[in-house]
């Protein structure tokens, strides 16, 4: 059996790729995708810990993360569409409506 630590390192690496995506990219769509990637990396470590301790609670958390991700995607993409109507771009640097 593959050691659980391997799954955790993989999860950390995927999370990091997600963080780098959020920090480096300017397209709101790709930033959203990076956030999804980060949520999935966390899911992987939840499932790995559930396997380590033979408990279903980790799986429950993953289910709730699925729910939150679905809600986040729906609202986030609606915001992106509203933004595109307003500014004709999805570049996060163009969005400064609330800048003082």
């Amino acid at each position, binding site marked *: 059996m593959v050691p659980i630590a391997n799954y955790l390192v993989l999860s950390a690496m995927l999370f990091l*790729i997600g963080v780098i995506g959020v920090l480096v990219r300017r397209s709101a769509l790709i930033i959203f995708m990076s956030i999804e990637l980060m949520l999935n990396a966390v899911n992987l470590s939840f499932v790995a810990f559930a396997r380590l301790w*033979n408990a279903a609670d980790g799986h429950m958390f993953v289910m709730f993360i699925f729910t939150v991700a679905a809600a986040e995607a729906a609202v986030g993409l609606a915001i992106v569409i509203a933004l595109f109507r307003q500014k004709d771009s999805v*570049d996060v640097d163009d969005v400064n409506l609330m800048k003082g």
Partner: protein
Amino acid sequence: METLLFWLLAVVALIAAGSMIIQRNPVHSALFLIMTLLSLAGLFLLLSAYFLAVIQIIVYAGAIMVLFLFVIMLLDIRRVEAAPSRVKLQKSLGILLGVVFLLETLLVLRSGVITDGAAAAATPLPEDFGTAVALGRVLFTSYFFPLQLAAVLLFVALIGAIVLSKRRW
């Protein structure tokens, strides 16, 4: 066999995730993200989370990513994303964060807090571990209140999405 599968899926997941943030075209990014999600579903199977693996494919790779692709194609972004210029600060911040995180991970792994799979392999899994029956039993007993809250959250998100995308009232 299991080890081989793990490494195969892990490498595919990492390469696809890396390509996702490098691609200029958002459609390609979305497709690479789907690839990552599918390899994660395979890893869930290796961890005997059967139900979650199926849900991962149906809900994530199916529903959520199709929603993403819909929006990308709906917006029809002509202007190519400008080269990341302002990003100097954030890029260095990202690299710094990465190094710190890597060091933390290595420290935790070396400290031996997480004992590896030997313990997990020794205790036999429950018969129905990771099946819909087992998950349903826990979901509708110990996690009943969070389940209701999740329903409310989805409802609010539904209303929010409609309100945000409505053009005129």
